[in-house]
């Protein structure tokens, strides 16, 4: 009588252990290493999809676009890390498309494909080409991958060769100008996004038309000429529609007032700074 309940308890514990361990094993097979940690902590909600053809055309198209970009991204990282030359060709998801191939290549798709077809080896890349040095995007991506900036290279800092140093300085100046250009491009993108967020499309369009007319005048003449343009613009505003008229006038007057004040302040400061810094550098030289 005493031994029977003892054995029953052992069997129950054993079964509970087995049930506890088995579903975790099943789950672990589906997830990656990072998800393992998450599974232990939070019970995990991520699931990987089965690798089989997607039936819905909308899902298929979106998946195709995203995964293609992902594949190109992986290839670009590999190119930066190992100086490899890669070409990727992909057909569009539907035969009705007017595009024959989506392609990515480094050094270029044509070069790699022609080398492959001819059976010859690719021309190996030079490690520090001028184009690679002076490309902002490549430098930033290398930093993200942990390779660092090329101008912080030890060999460059320790070298005593004036030719090498002057070449590096020229490349850095070119890179700086490219960086400013990229910043300008980004500013345009941001402006575009901000314009989209505006509540009324009419206001947006009218703003665009107005400032387009103002821009060439600002290039040729001084700021004093800006108020002279007021009557022409006011006539245009009256002709378009009465409702946004008041809003436009208020915004325009506010902008002009701020612009004039800030412009005067900035001009004086720039002149002072320019003269002082020019004198300093001339003395040093």
């Amino acid at each position, binding site marked *: 009588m005493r031994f029977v309940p003892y054995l029953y308890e052992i069997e129950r514990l054993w079964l509970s*252990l087995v049930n*506890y361990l088995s579903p975790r094993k099943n789950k672990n097979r589906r997830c990656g290493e990072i998800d*393992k*940690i998450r599974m232990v902590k939070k019970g995990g909600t991520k699931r990987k999809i089965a690798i*089989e*053809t997607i039936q819905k055309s909308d899902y298929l198209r979106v*998946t*195709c676009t995203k*995964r*293609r970009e992902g*594949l*190109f*991204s*992986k290839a*670009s*990282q*590999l190119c930066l*890390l*190992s*100086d490899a*030359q*890669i070409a*990727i*060709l992909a057909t*569009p998801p539907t035969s009705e498309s007017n595009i*024959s*191939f*989506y*392609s*990515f290549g480094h050094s270029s*798709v*044509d070069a790699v*494909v022609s080398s*492959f077809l001819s059976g010859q*080896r*690719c021309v190996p*890349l030079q490690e520090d080409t001028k*184009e690679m040095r002076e*490309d902002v*995007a*490549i430098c930033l*991506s290398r*930093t993200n991958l942990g390779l660092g900036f090329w*101008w*912080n290279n030890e060999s460059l800092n320790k070298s005593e060769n004036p030719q090498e*140093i002057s070449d590096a*300085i020229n490349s850095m100046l070119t890179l700086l100008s490219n960086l*400013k250009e*990229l*910043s300008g491009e*980004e500013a345009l993108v941001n402006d575009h996004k901000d314009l989209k967020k505006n509540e009324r499309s009419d206001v*947006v369009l009218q703003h665009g038309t107005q400032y387009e007319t103002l821009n060439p005048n600002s290039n040729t003449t001084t700021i004093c000429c800006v108020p002279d343009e007021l009557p022409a613009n006011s006539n245009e505003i009256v002709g378009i529609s009465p409702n946004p008229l008041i809003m436009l006038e208020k915004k325009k007057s506010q*902008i002009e007032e*701020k612009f004039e004040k800030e*412009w005067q302040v900035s001009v004086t*400061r720039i002149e002072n*700074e*320019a003269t002082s810094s020019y004198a300093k*550098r001339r003395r040093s*030289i």
Partner: protein
Amino acid sequence: MDSSMSTKKKTKLSVRNQTCFKKSSLSSSSTAKKTTNLSMREETMFKKALELSTLCDIEVCVIYYGRDGELIKTWPEDQSKVRDMAERFSKLHERERRKKRTNLSLFLRKKILDDNKLSEKVLEMKDSLESGLRVLQDKLLLLQPENQTELGQSRAVSSTTNPLSSPEDHHHQQWTEPLVTGVSNTEQDLSTSPLSNHQSKYSVFVYNHDSGSFYQVPDSICF
């Protein structure tokens, strides 16, 4: 209940220990890390190509040459398929080929413009670039008079021409920069229509102007 709790604790600890061990082994040496990463990255790329072709029912081919120009691997493994696709690509007209064709520079540029944290990265890069530029310029000025003494008479002529040209370039750059930045400033200020953006640009300009030297003023204006 006690036994189940003890098993839970054990599993947690074991999982964490494994991950720590793997990380430490990876970081043991940089060369080993790099090679391991590279081979894993290659496998990842080919795996992603497989997934893409299977999921979207399209044809994908990858041609992978190493740094020395040797053909390392292709996907699919069967080179006849790759060759077939490559031939179709090469037979296309140039205009057709140019559609949706991208290379490393263009792809990375587009990727960076889509990134929302661009301004931070750009500022970091700019600061590093400017500091490096100053260091190298100072070093170049120090080196050039030394080279005059070291080099012979024939080379002395070329070395004398160099310092004459470089300071002129410096003067030219400094002199032209404020005018160009002034013009760009007017253009950008006029072009910005929303008030918030207008205000933010001025605040950025004023702040940089107070803290930095003249060299940074045109940069702040450009933003």
